[in-house]
């Protein structure tokens, strides 16, 4: 994985934890061409290659299938209309914390919506960071984030 002159500038500016980004995800997995489309993702961690200096991110993918009330105590769900707009989302979104992926911060896995210069579309606000920490503690996987 090495940078080329064709790479967009944003690959040199990694997102931060709890940023919301637009990332590619298959729409039709059962077909030969799964039809990758951009959707929101929540950055859970940022990694850097010790040799290349390139970046990667652990992502929780977002979906507009909220699955309330079944998933409300398991996933981070943004459904308040004002919060949806504040965070840069297009519609209420559930970030699935069951299945996450570590993805290179490249144009293969991330892309920009029209009019955007970067895949970063917003950042979680403190109440949602606290909610995320609470969800993860309930899941028993990690201690709460620093300062939360």
């Amino acid at each position: 994985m090495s940078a080329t002159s064709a790479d967009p500038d944003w690959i040199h500016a990694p997102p931060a934890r709890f940023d919301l980004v637009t990332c590619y995800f298959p729409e039709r997995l059962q077909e030969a061409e799964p039809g990758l489309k951009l959707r929101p993702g929540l950055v859970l961690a940022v990694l850097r290659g010790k040799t290349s200096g390139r970046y990667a991110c652990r992502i929780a993918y977002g979906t507009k299938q909220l699955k309330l009330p079944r998933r409300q105590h398991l996933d981070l769900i943004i459904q308040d209309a004002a919060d949806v707009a504040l965070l840069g989302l297009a519609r209420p979104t559930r970030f699935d914390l069951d299945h996450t992926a570590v993805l290179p911060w490249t144009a293969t896995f991330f892309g920009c919506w029209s009019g955007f210069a970067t895949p970063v579309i917003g950042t979680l606000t403190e109440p949602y960071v606290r909610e995320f920490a609470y969800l993860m503690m309930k899941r028993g996987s990690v201690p709460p984030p620093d300062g939360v």
Partner: protein
Amino acid sequence: MPALRKKRDGAAPKTPAPPPEALAYDADVTAQAVAHMQRKADRELEGEEWAIVDGDVGDKR
């Protein structure tokens, strides 16, 4: 190394409104679909040692 941005002030992001294409995805997040993306990513991630520089979630690769 570019400075990692830290934004925790709750301020509204200075980004454009989402375009119509922001509504164009429908598939649910499934274990199979996430695994598909991870397999694709692993081809680019393998052969490099990765260190977490922001956050502490999941495996350390």
